[in-house]
């Protein structure tokens, strides 16, 4: 049975559908009682096609039909959303409960979509936030604490989205909690009485439990070092649901730790994930951007398209800052894209008088939406009068304090490039600073041109190496400068094309044989 056809038929009953009164959920006034009262008149409002969809959806969940679920999740749900629920929430879970024989597992999964839809299309109320949290607890409880592994199977995309959304809602809640100025007394009381909801500890607990249950760390070690995968994975981890949730939770932890400002711990999380470990962040960004660039055409119709583009832009912004702080050669394509998007900013970053402001703009645009782990102290009667702690500003301040020292370096570099030897006093006069200041500037530049580079071992280990193609030394007051040149690289290009050619040849031979 194909639901997309059904939707087309449904367009004919459009009139009937639009005649439904727009559901004005009383949730805002009546906090919890609303759930029960809305139930009766909900049932009549569900369009037939949606009813059928839910029954079909439920059947496929029962049958663990991952293939069909994938298309339900990626296509049908979104199409129906566009059609019926673009501006209102999906039917209350209680309203669809009779359609699915009150199947609690299905209802939990449905609620996951239901609340996610509210978060993305509408403005979640405090009740939505709390109920969604409770629903996630139910879901993870079912997965983690049933007797033995559960038989459920879901498409990988959905599993990823569950972890992703769980963290997004946590982040959104922290920011919401932080803004106490325009909250009603009821909302404040709610927050005060339920401090464990969306707490850091509970969120970390879920992610760590998924990692432990799936034995994903052990599995990754086996795939790296060899060994018995079956034994490493165990009863839970050998099932795709657990394995993927565990894997995605590692990435989830990376994100949570970043949001909380613990960048060391964030990196440590990735120890067992096979990354293409290269020097510094430039290369990671370049790599991903090349990927985005090359796959762009395939994404244009996907609903994730906008998000990928946004992330891409943010990465270009970060990359712009990276190459300013630590000049390196970039991939030709990436470089031209960068110039296209951030030429003006790039240019300004090298000018001492404008650099800081641009650094701030780019950082604010591209940084994660940092969160405060605890929120304001609601028991403190003075709290309403204090300016709330804004984590983003706090992090921006520290970041800017760090880059502030570097703003003269691009100018210094541009002068050094012109000479092989040069007197300290002469360069100081070019830069309009005094010779002693120049010396400290040179020492700082020297220190900053070295960084820890990953060679082997865990992600947090490395060797101290130079990064700059420009090096210098001081003999008393004379600066000696040397520039490294990079010869052209042909090998990679030829290797790629030889392989491509071989593939074509191989393909031709196959067709002639056939």
């Amino acid at each position, binding site marked *: 049975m194909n639901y997309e056809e059904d939707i087309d038929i449904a367009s004919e009953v459009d009139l009937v559908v639009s005649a439904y009164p727009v559901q004005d959920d009383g949730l805002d006034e009546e906090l919890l009682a609303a759930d029960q009262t809305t139930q009766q008149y909900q049932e009549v409002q569900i369009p037939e096609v949606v009813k059928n969809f839910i029954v079909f959806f439920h059947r496929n969940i029962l049958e663990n039909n991952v293939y069909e679920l994938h298309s339900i999740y990626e296509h049908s749900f979104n199409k129906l959303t566009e059609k019926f629920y673009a501006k209102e929430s999906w039917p209350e879970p209680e309203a669809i409960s009779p359609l699915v024989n009150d199947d609690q597992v299905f209802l939990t999964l449905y609620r996951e979509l239901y609340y996610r839809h509210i978060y993305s299309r509408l403005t979640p109320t405090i009740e939505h936030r709390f109920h969604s949290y409770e629903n996630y607890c139910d879901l993870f409880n079912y997965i983690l604490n049933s007797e033995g592994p559960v038989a459920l199977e879901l498409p990988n995309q959905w599993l990823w989205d569950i972890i992703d959304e769980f963290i997004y809602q946590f982040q959104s809640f922290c920011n919401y909690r932080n803004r106490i100025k325009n909250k009603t007394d009821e909302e404040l009381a709610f927050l005060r009485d339920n401090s464990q909801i969306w707490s*850091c*500890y509970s969120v*970390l607990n879920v992610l*760590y439990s998924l990692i432990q249950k799936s034995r994903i760390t052990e599995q990754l070690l086996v795939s790296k070092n060899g060994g018995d995968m079956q034994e490493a994975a165990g009863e839970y981890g050998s099932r795709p649901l657990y394995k993927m949730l565990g894997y995605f939770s590692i990435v989830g932890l990376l994100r949570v730790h970043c949001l*909380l*400002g*613990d*960048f*060391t*711990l964030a990196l440590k999380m990735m120890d067992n994930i096979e990354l293409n470990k290269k020097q510094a962040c430039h290369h990671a960004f370049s790599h991903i951007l090349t990927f985005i660039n090359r796959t762009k055409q395939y994404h244009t119709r996907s609903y994730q398209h906008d998000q990928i583009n946004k992330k891409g832009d943010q990465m270009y912004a970060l990359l712009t800052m990276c190459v300013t702080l630590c000049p390196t050669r970039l991939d030709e394509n990436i470089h031209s894209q960068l110039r296209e998007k951030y030429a003006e900013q790039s240019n300004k970053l090298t000018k001492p008088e404008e650099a800081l402001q641009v650094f701030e703009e780019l950082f604010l645009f591209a940084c994660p939406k940092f969160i*405060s*782990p*605890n929120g304001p102290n609601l028991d403190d009667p003075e709290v309403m009068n204090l300016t709330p*702690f804004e984590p983003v500003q*706090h*992090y921006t301040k*520290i970041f800017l*304090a*760090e880059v502030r*020292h570097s703003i003269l370096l691009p100018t210094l570099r541009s002068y050094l490039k012109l000479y092989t030897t040069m007197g300290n006093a002469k360069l100081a006069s070019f830069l309009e600073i005094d010779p*002693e200041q120049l*010396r*400290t500037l*040179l*020492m*700082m530049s*020297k*220190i900053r041109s*070295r960084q*820890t580079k990953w*060679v082997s*071992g865990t992600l*947090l*280990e*490395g*060797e*101290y190496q*130079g990064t700059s193609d420009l*090096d*210098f*030394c*001081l*003999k*008393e007051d004379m600066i*000696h*400068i*040397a*520039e*490294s*040149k*990079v*010869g*052209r*690289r*042909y*090998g990679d290009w030829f*290797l790629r094309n*030889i*392989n491509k050619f*071989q593939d074509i040849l191989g393909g031709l031979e196959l067709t002639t044989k056939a």
Partner: protein
Amino acid sequence: MVRVSNTPSSRPEVIQSLIDGVDRYNPDNVSILEEYLAAQCSNKECDAMANLAILKLYQFNPHLTNDQVVNNILVKALTTLPEPDFNLCLYLLNEQMVTEEPVVRLVALQDLIEQACFADFWKVYEGDDIYKELTAEVLGFEDLIRNNFANAIAMTFQSIELESLQAYLNLKGQALTDFIKTREWTEANGVVAIPVNKDNEAKTTVLTENIKFEQLTKIIGHSNDA
């Protein structure tokens, strides 16, 4: 030289398993980590990873926060600059702590060190007794800082006037002569010569392509097929 800045060889087993696992979130363990910090303060070692774990516990459980411990962690982090430890610590402190007097003072010192304003650093440091009080519990603070400065100087200079060196290291007379000797630098006519090392030699190099055998395996495989 392989530098493994994040795991000192002296890190005890208990600490290792604590920071590797979920136990790092257990508030009951804060005292173990605090004792370990005290040990680092007296034996001149620094384990940034373990110290960040203390700040993490404080971040989640603000009522546990011990200002003296935070202070010592930051002072320790000053001694490892230009490693990023100091800023990594700052990111874990809440805004209130960052605006308090001791932290502001230490940030001021960090600022000078990061900008390689070594002479100014000593002027500020010696100019107010409060700095010696703040760093009192970290044994050998001045020596550790001086060594880091000397490293930066050795990276940049092949020769430097004795007078500048004196200001950068805050050493005079015999103490300075001794320091120069332990570093295996040589002094003549008021100029100190620093032996060439891989950082202070500024050599022009041309990086040429280097194709590894592994890159060619696929192509060699093809030639076998034919």
